């Protein structure tokens, strides 16, 4: 019955005291937020806890929702912060907001790709395999929270840079740098697993941009280095 309403209309009706309108908002976002919470917490009980707490917070704070961000951004921000609190509690760390972690110099040097090779299989097919799923979850789990969160929102949940920045209370520049680091980190990890070893390429010489590293000589050098023939 509420299927045709826009989110703005549903929020307005919920603020006027209509529970079913609020319930419809929950219907529309629960699956996405559950996936996000699982992405952050990696454990269903905690993810359930995060989603339930987030919606209760939203219910309590509905009157203070000003509509300067979309409901989606607002509820995602609440769910993300709730999940982060649980994560930090679990790890025995003090609860700090995400932006406090930004003091580290983020303009620093970006780590260059090292392991470069075409993948042996189509990622859409790889994603269906259980052992692959475990491998990519492991890689994601190794990523620092501040990068993981940006990657989850931007690339997995398809938030814009702006909405990711608003959700995580970061600057857009910060989001971009963190996303680049996250993508490069995960690329490196996954290419070591899925890359075609035989056709592995030598990383480019970063002083120059126009070297061709696919020559037989460079491949031989690479092979010798891997065999331990070179220092």
């Amino acid at each position, binding site marked *: 019955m509420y299927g045709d309403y826009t989110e703005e209309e549903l929020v307005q009706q919920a603020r006027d005291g209509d*529970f079913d309108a609020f*319930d419809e908002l929950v219907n529309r976002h*629960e699956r996405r937020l559950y996936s996000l919470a699982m992405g952050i917490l990696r454990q269903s009980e905690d993810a*359930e806890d995060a989603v339930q707490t987030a919606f209760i917070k939203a219910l309590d704070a509905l009157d203070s929702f000003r509509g300067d961000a979309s409901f989606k951004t607002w509820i995602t921000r609440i769910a993300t912060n709730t999940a982060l609190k649980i994560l930090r509690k679990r790890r025995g760390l003090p609860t700090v907001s995400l932006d406090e972690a930004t003091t580290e110099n983020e303009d620093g040097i970006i780590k260059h790709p090292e392991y470069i090779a075409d993948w042996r299989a189509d990622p859409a097919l790889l994603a269906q395999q259980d052992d*692959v799923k475990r491998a990519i979850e492991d890689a994601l789990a190794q990523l620092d929270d501040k990068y993981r969160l940006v990657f989850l929102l931007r690339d997995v949940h398809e938030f814009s840079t702006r909405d990711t920045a608003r959700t995580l209370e970061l600057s857009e520049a910060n989001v971009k740098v963190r996303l680049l680091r996250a993508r490069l980190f995960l690329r490196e990890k*996954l290419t070591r697993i899925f890359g075609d070893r035989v056709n592995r390429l030598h990383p480019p010489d*970063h002083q120059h941009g126009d070297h*061709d590293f696919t020559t037989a000589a460079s491949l031989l050098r690479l092979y010798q280095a891997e065999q331990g023939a070179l220092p």
Partner: protein
Amino acid sequence: MTCDDLLKMLNDYVDGDIDPGVCEGLQEHLDDCNPCRVVVDNIRQTITLYKGSESYEIPVKFRRRLHDSLRERWKQKHGEK
């Protein structure tokens, strides 16, 4: 255009969020630089892989509990309708 330039603009390039003029320069570099081209492919594959696998079904039992608890909370806040 160097590999370092490409690295700096990698996100914008992968997201298709780049000025056409700059994009042309990057494209030229990619045509000549096999490793960079593979890195761009790898990044796209990485994103596709995570997008395809990072989805979890919400447990039915939990979903029921969630809606019940929200209805309860609503009643506490607003009283019965």
